[in-house]
């Protein structure tokens, strides 16, 4: 049997973007689409939240995608097959909302979000819904998991900023096309805040049910600390506990984006310290 939190497979999907399969049976037995884990890379490490993009309950393994953004994610992607994460705790947060819809479901992923929407795309399809995936990246080499997206969606619309594949532009260009041509009754967007905000603005006039997964800064992930608080519908909500998915039309994205910068100065110091060690 593998060791707890041992890395079973490691695959580079794009530069600085690694997909891991990890032995974490407690998480694997209960995890559902839209939920996340919190991991630590080392005993003196920080706790960072990471979405789940798949699992194998029999094997007791979970699949995550980490994009190096700073110190801890950079340390994480350096781990090799056979190495172990220090801690993995989960599942955390609530499952993404799924239901039988009278129109199309559009699932939008940017960056690591492409992995995060896969389980929910599968769930929605299993309920008999038509599911369209829209995935965005700067260029075609950065588009993730295209085969798997094609498998779990009825249609996949890639968008690239440089037009190297699919629609040139942003995910919202893809979304506009879909809304124009058919009835959309559900949108889920997971990715950078500006993307989730733009998607929510686009669906607001039509009143389309729109979910966004809020990537607030977290510590415990269980509702104990309040680090992840966001304003939704004028009320303070804890992203880890009440979410991570919220009604995109009610989220105060400006506040979320500002709060993500709370530790900017420290993050730079931490990354520099790692780089010094590596040189």
């Amino acid at each position, binding site marked *: 049997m593998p060791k707890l939190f041992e890395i079973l497979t490691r695959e580079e999907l794009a530069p600085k973007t690694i997909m891991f399969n990890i032995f974490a049976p407690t998480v694997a037995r209960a995890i559902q689409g839209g939920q996340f884990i919190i991991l630590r890379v080392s005993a003196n490490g920080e706790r960072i939240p990471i979405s789940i993009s798949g699992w194998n309950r029999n094997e007791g393994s979970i699949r995550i995608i980490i994009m190096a953004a700073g110190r801890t994610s950079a340390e994480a992607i350096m781990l090799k097959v056979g190495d172990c994460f220090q801690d993995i705790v989960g599942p955390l947060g609530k499952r993404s909302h799924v239901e039988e819809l009278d129109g199309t479901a559009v699932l939008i992923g940017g960056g690591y979000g492409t992995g995060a929407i896969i389980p929910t795309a599968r769930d929605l399809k299993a309920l008999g819904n038509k599911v369209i995936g829209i995935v965005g990246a700067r260029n075609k080499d950065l588009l993730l998991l295209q085969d798997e997206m094609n498998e779990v969606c009825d249609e996949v619309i890639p968008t690239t900023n440089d037009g190297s594949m699919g629609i040139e532009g942003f995910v919202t260009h893809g979304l506009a096309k879909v809304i124009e041509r058919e009835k959309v009754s559900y949108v889920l967007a997971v990715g950078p805040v500006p993307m989730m905000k733009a998607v929510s603005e686009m669906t607001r006039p039509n009143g389309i049910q729109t979910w966004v997964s809020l990537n607030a800064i977290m510590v415990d992930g269980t509702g104990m600390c309040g680090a992840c608080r966001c304003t939704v519908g004028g009320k*303070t909500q804890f992203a880890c506990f009440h979410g991570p998915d919220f009604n995109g039309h009610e989220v105060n994205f400006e506040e979320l984006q500002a709060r993500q910068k709370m530790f900017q100065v420290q993050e730079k110091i931490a990354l520099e310290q790692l780089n010094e060690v590596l040189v």
Partner: protein
Amino acid sequence: MKDQKPKLKPKEKMKIQRTEMPERTAEERVLGFGEVPLGFSEDLAEIEALRCLDCKDPKCMVGCPVGIDIPAFLKKVEDGDFAGAIAKIRETNFLPAICGRVCPQDQQCELTCIVGKKNKPLSIGNLERFVADYEREHGLRVTPEIEAPTGFSVAVVGSGPAGLTAAYELRKRGHEVTVYEAFHRAGGVLVYGIPRFRLPLDIIDEDVKALEEMGVNFEFNTIIGKSMTLDEMLSKEFGFDAIFIGTGAGLPKMLNIKGENLNGIYSANEYLTRIYLMGADRFPDNVTPLNQGKKVGVIGAGNTAMDVARTAKRLGAEVTVYYRRSKEEAPARTEELRHAMEEFINFKFLSNPVEFVGDEDYFVKKIVCDEMKLGEPDDSGRRRPTPTGKQFVDEVDTVIFSLGCNVNPLIPDSTPEIVTNKWGVVLVNEETLETSKKGVFAGGDIITGGAKVITAMGQAKIAARSIHHYLTEKTAKHTYFAKEVESV
């Protein structure tokens, strides 16, 4: 040597002054996280214990939620038999080094000590701490005897004082015990709440190690209600015969005022967890960051607020405590208030924060307060603060909320059978501490909404006894009838 001590009459004993434990000076202690009290020497401990009248009807014991045989242990201290003293304490208290340090003795055993009527009461907490430290420093700790295996297995949820005590009591009675903890280490609030200058980490770790040596299993990184439900635990899959819930109070309360989500504003839970669980005071060697400015405002004047203020001071800030009532109403213990005041912390009483103002980068810069005055007493008997109409503005770059907690609803949410009151406090049978779900018992802050270490321990002992009874009596039945346990 020991028997050369004079035999004193009660009247004479009553006249001896209480021996206070030596403390570091305030100037010295704000420089680091070392313990404030320095401990008794053997001589000082013996002299202090000598003051005990060895009462026939020891009132001190009434004040101790776990019922330590206080006169018996004090007698042994007086005789210099420190090993005997700790053995006596260990008959009823599994965490003496912790309780000796963090019990609010002045509201418990020392409040009811008879000597306190004429003189200062016996220094029971400090003596308990002394003998527990003596045991640790002299390697005298013995693994307690475990009864023959019963074949039953019990899950304990949470590793705070309630969970640790329940695990100890259940394991001693011969049951298999597994403790599930959400974090990566054991201790609960003992670790991520109570500061190191009041409770060093190695003391908690020793007690956890002792449990491991007794054969208690610890499963970390597991959140009951998320990783698995109570029903699953009681099913064949996990095969537990009973469950003890000791998950504490969790959800921090906020004020719901303008600007409270600005950067630089923390709950006490977040602030203390970053420092004491994640070690942010040693950033970047520990990677968890803390962004503390030069001017820190602490909101609230309870014990947690004092812990936060004193911590912020040690990390180099100028600290001001804002509290909407006056000093007399402050919920913090006198000793905690005294320590904070000695440590150069400013207090602004009758100051009620109404708004925070931030800069263009969304960082808090100012706190706006209503000046208050005290009116008629409210339900709690404390005089109700009302605004005078005047306001003042202070500059701050960090604010920490210490307004207490609501109970974390993770477990009741995932198991609707668990009945709670409207504040989320889990309701139990007052005598057995069984919840509305058969075979599931609870104790600690989850059933009080927030109390004390020793109360949590006392409840865990009661629950463990009930669980034992529930498991071993073939006729055991569900005893639940809704009752809130008063937070004493």
